[in-house]
């Protein structure tokens, strides 16, 4: 695999190959032009890191992919369908194939509902009855290394890392094809962050069907989690490609600057 730049002569691959396809995507909030001419193909079964500094538009792009942000122009195809053009019912069906995991573990769970109720809603949005899904709930909690007994407790009884596991469990419960994880380790202490990274690696073992977009500002975390990388700056894509290759031989100056800024990295110099 290599970094490929779209060239007109190359045949356009069948839609199914890409889980996310953006063409000339632009997004503005009022007078702020946040995403500028994004062209991107994300293949299935990969974990793709979306990295950049504040104001790069990485979170905005992620939220556009899950349908929280509406794009201003261009096209965005996710799991074979265009969210913006999909009818209400199709859009809701599509929502369940993409799951968004937000950054702040303290606001992503309804404080008034037990963990079982929250997870039951993911299994069955209509009834959300925890009793009829007790086994599945226990199973999904086990997959994020939490005992089944936590199901009856409320979010405020858990630490940030545990809450983030529950948020991941909820995304798993839906059975989505694409996970969009937005800075999910940024609010955590390093040791907890390490646990989440290990959990993600374990969940991914032998799994080629699910795709994940992992947004982070931390390049080292990206390297620990991702296969591919998209580097963004000021609303534009600066560089894309297989992560190890990009880190070993960055093509863009900005990527080089970013890499050299990581404390403990080879290019880091204080004087």
């Amino acid at each position: 695999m290599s970094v490929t730049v779209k060239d007109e002569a190359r045949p356009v691959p069948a839609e199914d190959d890409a889980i996310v396809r953006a063409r000339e995507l632009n997004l503005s909030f009022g007078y702020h032009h946040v995403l500028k001419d994004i062209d991107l193909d994300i293949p299935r079964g990969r974990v793709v890191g979306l990295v950049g500094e504040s104001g790069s538009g990485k979170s905005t792009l992620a939220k556009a992919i899950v349908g929280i942000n509406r794009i201003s122009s261009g096209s965005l195809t996710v799991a074979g369908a265009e969210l913006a053009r999909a009818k209400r019912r199709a859009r809701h069906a599509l929502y369940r194939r993409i799951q968004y995991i937000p950054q702040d573990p303290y606001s992503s769970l309804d404080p008034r509902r037990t963990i079982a109720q929250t997870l039951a809603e993911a299994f069955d949005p209509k009834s959300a009855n925890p009793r009829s899904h007790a086994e599945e709930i226990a199973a999904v909690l086990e997959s994020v290394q939490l005992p089944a007994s936590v199901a009856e407790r409320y979010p405020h009884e858990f630490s940030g890392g545990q809450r983030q596991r529950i948020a991941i469990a909820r995304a798993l419960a839906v059975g989505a094809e694409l996970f969009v994880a937005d800075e999910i380790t940024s609010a955590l202490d390093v040791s907890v962050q390490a646990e989440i990274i290990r959990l993600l690696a374990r969940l991914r073992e032998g799994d080629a069907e699910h795709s994940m977009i992992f947004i982070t500002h931390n390049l080292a975390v990206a390297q620990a989690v991702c296969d591919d990388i998209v580097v963004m700056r000021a609303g534009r894509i600066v560089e894309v490609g297989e992560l190890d290759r990009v880190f070993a031989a960055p093509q863009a100056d900005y990527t080089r600057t970013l890499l050299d800024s990581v404390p403990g990295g080879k290019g880091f110099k204080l004087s």
Partner: protein
Amino acid sequence: MSTASRPTVWRPAFTLGVVLMVALVLIAVVAPIFVTGSATAITDDTALPPGRGHPLGTNDFGQDNLARVLVATRLTLIMTVCAAAISVFGGLVVGVAIWLAPRVVREWCLRLLETAVAYPTLITALIIAAILLPGATTAVLALGIAGIPGFARVTANLAGRTARSEYFLTSRFLGVGSYQLAVRHMIPAMAEPLLVLATTIFSATLVEISALSFVGLGVQQPEYDLGSLLNDSLESLYTQPIEALGPAVMIVLASVAAMLIGDGLAAHADPRTARTWSPRTPEANATASPAADDEALVRVCKLAIRGGQQRRALVKGIDLHVAPGEIVGLVGESGSGKSLTAMSVAGLLADDLDLEAEELRVGDMNMKGTPTAAQLAQEIALIYQDPGTTFNPSRTMGPQLTEVLRTHSGYSRKEAQQAIIEALATVGIDQPELRMKQYPHQLSGGMRQRAMIAAAVVNRPQLLIADEPTTALDVTVQVEVLRIFHQLRRRLGTAVLFISHDLGVVGELCDRVVVMRDGAVVEELTAAQLAAGEVSDPYTAALLDAVPQIDTSRGLPEGSRP
């Protein structure tokens, strides 16, 4: 909802409110049955002073004042309940409808409500009273309708806030339908604040419905409520002032009762209200006498900090020292006590925490006592994390950055400005004169942090305490700020106590690293030991292991890897 961890709602004030309200309701139910006769019968005992049989005297028609007040309570309460119900129900319907409406409609409606809310309720009520004939029903309708915008606005805002919350958003993306979203997440989230608001509306309606009767546009003769009774009493205020007492006290009691209930509910919803305060008494001696052989600039011996209602140990007797010109990193995860330690050294520990130490000194200042502000400001400088809030947002940078020089170092405004402008230039800020005139929000985070550092070191302090100074910054900016620290030490020889959760950053900058966990020091390392991974404590090892390392050689072809 788990109530175990929350304090009970039955605090004295709330209980008093409920008792008062129950008493008023009882009066409203019972009084008309027993005393309607003496309240309405016209007798010859006109304008009697208070006395036997007539505790509040009689009015000009010989009716018993106390009986009238007790009977009037029923009509006032009934009218208030009806009007408040209209406001609450109407407000809920309008508020939810606005939230469900398309965005453009919603924004216009919200702006409209904003204006309507600013418009006095009583005047809106007067419009309705002008259309319908004055009377009890009119008063209820008038105030009921006039109260709708206020309740609707809060409902719409609460609904909007819940709708934007991440858990609501996530549930929506699980494919949960609108009805279920409302029942499961929206209504439970709004119930508590709306209940509080409903009691406020009740108390406001009670006051205003009585006001309407008071000015003669509410309840009409021969009916009477508390407001109209108070109005009647005005005419005889010179001759029979006691007549005003009954209705006045009753209105105040009802209003206070509703308010106490509302405050109690609000306090219950906001657990922040329970706090304690037991200030420390500083030691009298502000000068420390270091041992003759102690060359350290900062010396901390057996520092212990306790806090909270249980006086839990937050820092457990730690030792720490910083030599002149040394950069010491203080590392730990959240709750390790690293910031508390640093703030104790700075003499800025919150005064509701207990502090004990055998020794706590910076230079010759005893930080357990209170050295003069000028000495503290000149010898210890502080830099904090910059989430964009470390500068006063309503003043320009100039006056803030020059604050220490002007207040404590005797510079004139001009001299201080000149000194800061030069300092800004040395930390690489372009157009320093312009920056001095700008507001904090007009500068980038990196620029604000450099300015903070420049202002901190312009006085040549002996010690610089930096609490997570680069945590909120982007990596490329972080490097630049770390470089400034590095240069400063080489140029000025300032000692730095550098607090961070990031072992990578600390490893690059510091001479020595102190690792903290749960209020105790677990290990001290030199930079070289840290770089080589020569750690002995398992926690430090785990911490080092947890930090993901970047490896730029993995992508290279097999043969070319180092």
